[in-house]
């Protein structure tokens, strides 16, 4: 991965930062320049809570090449208390246990190793709330 991409992705991948529309209150993750609901351009940075609930989920058993060694793994759409939704892997549990309604917390983790060089790519994964 070229380093400028790391640099651009610091807010959402490292700080779990989205944006809130100053006009209509819509929360997006990652941040956007234009509000998808009202088209307002007054999007203000907003850090999300590191917790949420599974909206829907699956277990990936035929992964892309970069994640062959991780399979099977659970992926879910998680909604945070602010109303932002994000797609993340769910770790530290049996993937079959991840179902809609499950309470999770969002932790900073290694997400994948990319390409032949195996560059380590970080971001957030969900883990069950125990």
């Amino acid at each position, binding site marked *: 991965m070229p380093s400028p991409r790391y640099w651009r992705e610091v807010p959402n991948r490292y700080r779990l930062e989205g944006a809130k529309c100053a006009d209509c209150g819509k929360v997006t993750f990652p941040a956007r320049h234009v509000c998808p609901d009202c088209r307002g351009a007054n999007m203000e940075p907003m850090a999300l809570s590191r917790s949420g609930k599974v909206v*829907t*989920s*699956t277990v990936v058993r*035929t992964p892309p090449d970069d994640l062959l060694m991780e399979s099977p793994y659970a*992926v879910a759409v998680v909604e945070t208390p602010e109303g932002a939704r994000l*797609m993340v*892997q769910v770790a530290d549990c049996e993937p079959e246990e991840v*179902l809609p309604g499950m309470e999770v917390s969002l932790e900073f983790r290694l997400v994948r190793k990319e390409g032949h060089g195996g560059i380590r790519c970080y971001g957030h994964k969900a883990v069950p709330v125990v």
Partner: protein
Amino acid sequence: MRDVAIVGAGMTRFGELWESSLRDLFVEAAVEALTSAGADHLDDLYIGNMSGGQFVGQEHLAPLMADHLGMAGIPATRVESACASGGAALRLGYMSVASGMSDVAMVAGVEKMTDGADVTNVLATAADQENEVYHGITFPGLYAMIARAHMAKYGTTEEDLAWVSVKSHHHGSMNAKAQFHREVTVEEVMSSTMVADPLTLLECSPVSDGAAAVILVPLDQAKKYTDRPVRIRGVGQATSAMALADRRDPAALDAVAKAAERAYKATGLAPKDIDVAEVHDCFAIAEIACIEAVGFACEGEGKDAARSGLTALGGKIPINTSGGLKSKGHPVGASGVAQAIEIFEQLRGEAGERQVEGAHTGLTQNMGGSGASSLVHIFERV
């Protein structure tokens, strides 16, 4: 705007066609379409193709294909909207003829998926790279999440999903051009390998090679080419949020609903007026969600349609009589055009064993990615 008709069609067999290259596939379908219409020239050419660049390293398809068709010189354009590329090309061909810009246009779709690329990775480029694919999601995975959301909201079951594939394979068993001709049982579908929970292998469309092409002319010139033209009554196209996480409801396909609404508005027709339809069943759950979005079943009731026979041949609204993407095959860029060919044949009474008796009006619904782009075309026997 002029009325537009399809007057000829050509299509390769769909499947793992090791002996054919990307251009071979296009030329075979295109020559058959020209011959069937008796057309000796083209004023315009649109080619739906998702990813020649990634599958076989070939971009700039439009001049390449025109050249190999012996028609270097004509205007030609490659159209991309992921798996809806064929449908998007059809809309542009329709606009080209309707507007008076051209009198004979070809719309084709082509994809060569089996020549070595990592298909899972290539298809995933139709999802949001930064926010979905980065986290390891695949296309079966995205539709599996739609399925789980549908199950949680409406009580859809794994058996409901299996029935969709049983019906598709039954229809496909009667289609000589289909990739699979074998019937399957609910038990076989449910016990096949799990790909992305809750979707099994037999609930996923296959990796396919293939091409399809149709010839469009103004309706008032159609009789020069054929006794049985099929009129394109109207089209609707729409988009929705790209990422599943950004959708209002992950169980709903809003772009499909909007495209259908626009097509119905353009034609003055309603779901009850449609006699036969092809919808985008890339996964079993997609057929269920699509027939709800297009209006053939109420919200949450699409799950019962295949099992009850509503959408089977002989049912009230036969869906995917070709076998659908599941059984006929899904060379992604070609599928939208192949859907139109099935309806073309149905409305001309040429569908053989698969014929829907008395079919007068038909519909195709094609979509891209996990449903972020969709097209709906409505056709009518003349």
